[in-house]
């Protein structure tokens, strides 16, 4: 027993020592387990060679776990991280609260795509540097569309999508016309449904923060979404998120998939069985002047109160630089560089050869976070509403819509429940007096 005690105490002592005795500056970087982030972890030698006094320690987590940990930590000033990976939703809220340090060493800030940089700027200061940006677009199987006797327009309408999906679907062969997100979550099905609803002219709130789920636009949008997925979607659509759909598409089971532009490099990559048969088109519209695409950027930021701000600034500068882009290109090819952040990347003739480059840029440029939908709104954000209450509310609404997709309730019931939930939440939070 004594030796066990000694062992435990010894292990504790070693653990305590090793954290203090090592390297001068150790950056703890919280990041999400997306492909581009994992790739960066393999390339950090380039950074540490140039900065031998800095060591990097990665905390790689699944998106939701990461968000919860980082939010808890920054809100309680726990100080566990020096660099955070956060999205376009958090930056304006946290920036306004003074929880983030303005970035000073970002490589050529004027080169950042205005649509992306705009969402990361608070009071004229860049609070987070985009690591990769994304919009959403249609990815489709050229062979299946052709076999159906159709042609995909570069800028399709929702009616085109519906018609083509209907022709492709062949449930006996497990080919489904369209794969869309159905898994409940504000960053999962609600990202897609909100962006889609924008193109139908719907909005979350009117100018007085009154929820709008009782509007005819929402009714059209939700009915269309449910109908499309129920007739031409895969089984289990209500638990499919980005990853599940990616797996389905790569396995050749989806005719079309409307999702994040970053997926393009995966569906044309080596793990895809359909890599040479993929075409791209803009997200669909309804003829109302707004397309159903979103805008998001996974970005790096520094929490206020870190002792290691200087090193963190240096690291973010490196990770979001043109130099890093070239490094990835030289090692892994142009198709694998983090997309959607810089004008110069899209001016590069090498990158222009990548099949999805132009469509990604066009998609990003056609999204406007300040005017997301047809009617005026009091909020910023395309597929989200940049207020602290949104994540919780949209998760609840996402669960309701996901249940509707699973056939547990009708679209009307779902909308009524969503309206109630939103009214409750907004009243509780004091938006509705």
């Amino acid at each position, binding site marked *: 027993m004594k030796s066990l005690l000694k062992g435990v105490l010894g292990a504790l002592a070693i653990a305590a020592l090793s954290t203090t005795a090592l390297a001068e500056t150790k950056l703890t970087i919280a990041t999400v387990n997306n492909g581009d982030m994992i790739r960066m972890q393999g390339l950090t030698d380039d950074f540490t060679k140039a900065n031998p006094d800095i060591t990097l320690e990665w905390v790689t987590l699944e998106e939701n776990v990461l968000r919860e940990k980082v*939010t808890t930590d920054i809100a309680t000033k726990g100080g566990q991280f020096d660099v955070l990976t956060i999205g376009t939703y958090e930056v304006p*809220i946290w920036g306004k609260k003074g929880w983030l340090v303005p970035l000073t060493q970002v490589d050529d800030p004027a080169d950042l795509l205005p649509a992306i940089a705009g969402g990361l700027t608070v009071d004229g200061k860049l609070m987070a540097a985009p690591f990769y940006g994304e919009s959403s677009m249609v990815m489709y199987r050229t062979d299946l569309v052709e076999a159906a006797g159709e042609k995909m327009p570069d800028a399709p309408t929702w009616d085109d999508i519906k018609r083509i999906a209907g022709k492709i679907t062949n449930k006996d062969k*497990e080919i489904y016309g369209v794969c869309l997100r159905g*898994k409940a979550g504000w960053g999962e099905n609600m990202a897609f449904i909100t962006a889609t609803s924008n193109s139908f002219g719907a909005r979350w709130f009117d100018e007085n923060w009154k929820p709008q789920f009782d509007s005819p636009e929402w009714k059209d949008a939700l009915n269309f979404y449910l109908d499309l997925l129920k007739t031409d979607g*895969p089984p*289990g659509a209500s638990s499919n998120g980005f990853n599940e759909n990616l797996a389905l598409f790569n396995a050749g089971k989806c005719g079309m998939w409307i999702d994040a532009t970053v997926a393009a490099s995966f569906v044309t990559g080596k793990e895809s069985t359909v890599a040479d048969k993929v075409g791209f088109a803009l997200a669909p519209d309804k003829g109302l002047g707004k397309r159903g695409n979103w805008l998001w950027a996974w970005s790096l930021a520094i929490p206020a109160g870190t002792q290691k701000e200087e090193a963190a600034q240096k690291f973010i500068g490196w990770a979001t630089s043109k130099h890093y882009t070239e490094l990835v290109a030289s090692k892994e090819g142009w198709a694998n560089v983090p997309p959607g952040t810089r004008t110069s990347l899209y001016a590069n003739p090498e990158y222009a050869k990548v099949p999805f480059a132009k469509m990604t840029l066009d998609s990003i440029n056609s999204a406007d976070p300040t005017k997301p939908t047809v009617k005026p709104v009091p909020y910023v954000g395309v597929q989200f509403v940049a207020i*602290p209450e949104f994540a919780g509310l949209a998760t609840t609404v996402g669960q309701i819509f996901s249940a509707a997709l699973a056939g547990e309730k009708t679209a009307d019931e779902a909308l009524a429940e969503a309206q109630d939930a939103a009214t409750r939440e907004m009243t509780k939070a004091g938006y509705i007096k």
Partner: protein
Amino acid sequence: MATQQSRQLGRLAVAPSVVALFLWMIVPLAMTIWFSLLRYNLLDPNYACSLLTPGQLFDEANRCFAGTSNYYYFLTDPAFFKAMANSLILVGWVLLISVVGGTLLALLLDQAIMGRNIVRLMVIAPFFVMPTVSALVWKNMMMHPVQGFLAWITKSLGLGAIDWFAHYPMTAIVIMVAWQWLPFATLILLTALQSFDEEQKEAAQMDGTPPLSFFWYMIVPHLARPVTVVVLIETIFLLNVFAEIYVSGSGGRAGNLPFLVYQYGLISNDIGGASAGGLIAVVLANIVAFFLMRMIGKNLEG
């Protein structure tokens, strides 16, 4: 028998554990009660209410104090009753499956079978699997409607793929959780069976006592006590099942009370609401525990 002195010593020996658990209970509890009375959203500019000195708080009372509104909103949330029902369904079904299934399995494993040790290893294995891994495995490898193994079986049988998490989320959760706790029940009941007097068993066989009545009049009373233990321990853990629901992403429809509290606290960042919800959950859990003790507690006496 116990002298005055040994009583005192006994108290002294019990003291550290009581103090430790009392602190572990009372400090978070006090803070939770305090937070439940505040408007405290982690992301809200007003969050600093919880950090103010009493004097400042007095000045800012209007802004900070939520009164009972956190409790009001939690109790009137339509999700609350569903979560409560889900909690009870989950606990009830898993208990039923593990007690009935565990008894049958224990009886089976108590027979003279070949390779009993290996069989026992296989049966108890799920108890060692961490809940997060179990949820990932069931969700992705077994119950996935396209790539899942169960989908392949049902399709081969001509039944078509069952989309577990979309159509039967509660069933799916019950299966996952029961898979983990059935082995635990089996283990305890098997131990109890093996302690059963061999001579009695043989005597009963000699007498030609029919197996069913032997089971009913001899084995069932013998198992009453271990079953009580299984029910008690499992209830404590089952009331707080979280990882399985969280990881499988079925919190929307199969979410229980802990999951709802989580949704308030970590998705909405509404610490005030989550604190109120946590306290309500504790009260309800203790009510369940109280009735449970009333019903089965006498088996533990003696």
